[in-house]
């Protein structure tokens, strides 16, 4: 039960990130940490930002050009048409330059973001490969996948926020400089609107993030319900709950609509409409000022044109900025979940430093090994045994006796803290992990198949294994019989999880996978899945062949498999209760004898 509860807790922390609100200090910390992964691509961002600064400059130079044109040529009257044409051409050239800058600044920034995103994915994926099996036991696969694929996605939006804020700042600064140099008093008047604007932005981001979060929660609730109702449709229909479930769905659907309408209201009230209002009011104030000045002094039309354009430049980027702020929250939440994986300390067991041993003989010794998954309940208790090179050790015992755990510690999937495991009389931790993996071949009960074809499933990623070796391995375990019948034979496609193949066929392929690596030591976890008699015979034969000349630790469910083992260990509640050869154990009239009697009685 302890196991279930810890999973329970793990799940809750995984799921509730959405609803937690994170303090500003933590938000900044999270952002700073995630941004480090953008550093390798800083040139993309820097160039994009430089371009965007140039862009802001052009945006103020173009109106200035028109202003000059109006005040110095159009106001004068009888200007030659070719001068007018020159100005038109110059203006057009300016916009071409502007377009080029726009393209590169957008494109480079997006590519920088894309590369950052993929970099984070790779870092995450690499990190996952360093984590121990315990992590994977505790975390649902679906949530890990979603961290790697979906959460990283929100980083894109996150970076987009920075882009819009920085571009906005450039525009505001350049617009202000332009206004200031045109008419300083009016510039200060416009700047007077900035506090109101900042207040609106602050209020919006504060208020909208709440509304937005609520809307997102409702949407995900809606989709979860939809998904669940489709998957559970049989149950719903069989138990005649269509109406209740529909009503519940309808309630959520309505909640979502309300949340969405609230979001629309907030946006209509505060977003671009408000910016537009403030812009118009700023124009009113500026024109009033110019109008008052004009009572005593000459104000040129070009100045009015240029200044009103700058005011629009000043306000325009604001709505973009505000809009993007709502996704800031998404990014922080997603980043915090990504960082949680990167910070996870559930590492795979490590070898001693400078480990460099080589397994030559294949002798295995367990010395007083005890092990527990959660640090509390001992699953293995004081296990000691020796397997000499070439010998077979059979392990039998009831469900829960600890059989699989012996494999788990020996394969270094989990760290044990008491006792010692020796291979060729040397501590297992003094061999590099790759040596252990290469020399100890594990045949798993559940033979997972990868997307690809038959031969890629036998050789896995190891390109050093030739086609010949693959065929030989398959032949050796007699998997060739069914492979030869497949369309495309060794190149027959394997889809998700090997659904096309029976569990017996998968088992044979898994044997071939092990044989092709030619390990010194073999660890067998006999499958319990029911397999038809013909395949069963093939499997037994295959097992027998693989064991030749290898030290073997075999967990057996059928005593016939290990009858000829040099030693048989009988496990009960994590302890060795009997040990000896088949005949010795029979003579004892103990646990083994009972098991044997039972199986004999049946046969």
């Amino acid at each position, binding site marked *: 039960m302890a196991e279930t509860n810890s999973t329970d807790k793990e799940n809750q922390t995984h799921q509730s990130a959405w609803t937690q609100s994170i303090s500003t200090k933590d938000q900044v910390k999270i952002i700073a940490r995630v941004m480090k992964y953008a550093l390798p691509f800083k040139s993309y961002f820097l160039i994009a930002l430089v371009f965007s600064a140039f862009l802001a400059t052009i945006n103020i130079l173009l109106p200035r050009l028109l202003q000059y044109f109006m005040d110095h040529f159009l106001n004068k009257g009888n200007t030659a048409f070719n001068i007018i044409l020159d100005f*038109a051409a110059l203006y057009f050239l300016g916009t071409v330059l502007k377009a080029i800058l726009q393209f590169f600044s957008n494109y480079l920034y997006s590519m920088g973001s894309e590369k950052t995103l993929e970099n984070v994915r790779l870092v995450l994926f690499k990190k996952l490969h360093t984590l121990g099996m315990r992590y994977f036991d505790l975390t649902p696969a679906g949530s890990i996948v979603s961290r790697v694929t979906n959460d990283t996605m929100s980083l894109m939006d996150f970076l987009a926020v920075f882009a819009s804020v920085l571009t906005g700042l450039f525009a505001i600064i350049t617009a202000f400089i332009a206004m200031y140099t045109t008419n300083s008093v009016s510039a200060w008047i416009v700047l007077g609107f900035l506090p109101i604007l900042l207040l609106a932005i602050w209020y919006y981001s504060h208020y909208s993030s709440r509304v937005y979060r609520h809307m997102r929660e409702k949407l995900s609730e809606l989709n979860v319900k939809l998904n669940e109702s489709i998957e559970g449709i049989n149950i719903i229909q069989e138990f005649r709950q269509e109406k209740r479930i529909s009503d519940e769905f309808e309630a959520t659907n309505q909640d979502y609509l309300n949340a969405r309408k609230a979001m629309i209201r907030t946006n209509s009230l505060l977003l671009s409409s408000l910016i537009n209002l403030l812009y118009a009011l700023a124009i009113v104030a500026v024109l009033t000022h110019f109008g008052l000045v004009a009572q005593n002094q000459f104000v040129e039309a070009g100045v009015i044109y240029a200044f009103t354009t700058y005011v629009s430049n000043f306000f325009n980027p604001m709505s973009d900025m505000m809009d993007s702020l709502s996704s800031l929250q998404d990014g922080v939440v997603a980043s915090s979940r990504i960082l949680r994986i990167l910070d996870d300390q559930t590492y795979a067991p490590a070898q001693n430093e400078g480990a460099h041993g080589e397994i030559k003989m294949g002798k295995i010794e367990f010395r007083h090994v005890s092990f527990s998954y959660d640090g509390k309940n001992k699953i293995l208790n004081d296990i000691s045994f020796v397997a000499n090179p070439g010998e077979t050790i059979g392990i039998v015992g009831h469900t829960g006796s600890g059989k699989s755990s012996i494999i788990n510690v020996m394969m270094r999937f989990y760290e044990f803290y008491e006792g010692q495991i020796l291979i060729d009389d040397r501590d297992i931790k003094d061999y590099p992990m790759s040596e252990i993996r290469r020399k100890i071949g594990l045949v798993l009960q559940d033979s997972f198949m990868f997307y690809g074809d038959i031969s890629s499933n036998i050789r896995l990623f190891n390109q050093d294994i030739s086609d010949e070796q693959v065929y030989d391995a398959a032949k050796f375990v007699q998997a060739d019989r069914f492979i030869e019948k497949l369309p495309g034979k060794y190149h027959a496609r394997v889809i998700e999880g090997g659904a096309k193949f029976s569990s017996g066929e998968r088992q044979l392929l898994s044997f071939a996978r092990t044989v092709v690596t030619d390990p010194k030591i073999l660890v067998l976890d006999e499958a319990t899945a029911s397999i038809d008699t013909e395949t069963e015979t093939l499997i037994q034969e295959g097992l027998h062949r693989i064991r030749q000349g290898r030290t073997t630790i075999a967990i057996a469910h059928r005593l016939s498999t290990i009858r000829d083992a040099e030693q048989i260990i009988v496990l009960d509640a994590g302890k060795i209760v009997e040990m000896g050869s088949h005949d010795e154990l029979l003579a004892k009239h103990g646990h083994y004898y009972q098991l044997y009697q039972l199986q004999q009685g049946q046969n």
Partner: protein
Amino acid sequence: MGIFIKLSWFFKQQKKRYIAGVLFLLLADLAGLIPPRVIGVLADLMNDRQLTLQLLFLWVGLLALAALVQYLSRYGWRNMIWGGAATLERELRTSLFSHFMKMDETFFQRHRTGDLMAHATNDLNAIQNVAGAGILTLFDSILTGGTTIIAMMVFVDWRLTLVALIPMPLLAVSARVLGRRLHQAFGESQAAFSRLNDKTQESISGIKVIKTFDQNQPDVADFEKIINKTVRINRKVYRIDSLFDPTTSIIIGLTYAITIAYGGWLVTTHVITLGQLISFVSYIGALVWPMFAIGRLFNVIERGNASYDRVAELLGEQSLIKERPGAIEALAGSSIDYHVAQFTYPDDQQPALTKIDFDLAAGGTLGLVGRVGAGKTTIIKLLLREFDNYDGTIMIGGKNVKDYTLEGLLSAIGYVPQDNFLFSSSVRDNIRFAAMDKSDLEVQAAAQQGAIHDDIQNFRNQYDTLVGEKGVSLSGGQKQRLAISRALITMPEILILDDALSAVDAKTEMQILENLKQERHNKTTIIASHRLSAVVNASEILVIDDGRVVERGTHEQLLALDGWYAEMWQRQQISAEMGADQDGRD
């Protein structure tokens, strides 16, 4: 434009909302015409030194008024039109959902969950876009475009307007072309994303194999290859996406250049004033969005139309299971007479069942055994009326199952399916799923019968513990026992266990079977099982292979027959003793 006609039912239903929305839009557009003109007028007045204080405040007051009207009407149309889109999405989602609830097994075999989800999310989104962005751009381009062009002609000069507008249609064209290409590139990008997703999924699921064969490094290398490919594909998306702004800039730039040249000429020749030129330049700015929107409108319509057709097709499919008029509303008894000569799944060639006949008296227990895929579940599915297209008759209580209402038939049957699907609600609500009015005591009693009560007591929040992703993760055996309790709570006349004890250990299985015997005398039970120990006490056991009955009889008779059943029995006795090793972590 066909999509607007297809959606006309909705626009009629929301007539007031959309009329108000369009009126607000018109008001906002009209108010939007004022500022450029006022700026131009004031510029002229100042340039000509003719601005009096009175005139100044008059014009500036008008400007302030326009700003206020614009703000309010913007708020109005946004709420109306975007709200309408949200409402449409909700309505369609409701009809899809209630349609799903009504559909039969055939439908769900043809459409996978992922596809149905995609229809209910992506397609609905594309359709609601028509009622939101579609309506907006349609009216906005007509209203804003129309009024602005008229204002340009009236307030400035009609010749200048015609000449300056020449490049404008290019905006619509570029928006259409780029939008289409972006959509295409985006499709590839999504395919790349799902490849990445699949790869991650596979690596996480197969992590033990990867570790066993020391394939961590190569697996990372493979992932990196996929990542690089994704970057390459996304590069295209960003390239097209980054083209939107520059293209607009150049087309607008062209318009400005024409305005400078021709408008400048008109000013120097005193046809128009400088202030009018300034107004004109501002009006061009107001035209950018409507022109661009026309191009986008085509894309919105195209996608919305395709999505609408898909959704309509889905909604048009009918359940093959129909209730007869005047169907019987309550079960006439719980005896089962099952005679099916042949049944073939829709879209399949090979028959799934051939000559399945059995008569089960009320209170009897039928055992169904056989290999995976032999047809045990299919026999049950026909009984539950998931399919009607079989050759033969199935009678319950002496009446054809097709003569009952679905409510009458199904509410008398308690069904525990193979995949024991649970909902992400509390343990309590999962148990009383079929009868939410059951008291805590009744829930507890059902849990005890299903031998799950003790486990629940150990959960953190006992019966309030949430099931599923957000709550406790249950073992296979716990899920099965919960599903059994769920079926038992209504005390059904007929109970069907479809391989429902496979993950439960032998001792618990015995206990549950014993509970059933105690609580369910005189009630009919069907047990399909891979494990023979579950059917030992059945009044009749059918051994199914390849959709046919190959052996039948009581446990003793079948053992004596010394066929498949007898062989399986021996084998399973052995492995039951040795057990699959789970190290107590189940």
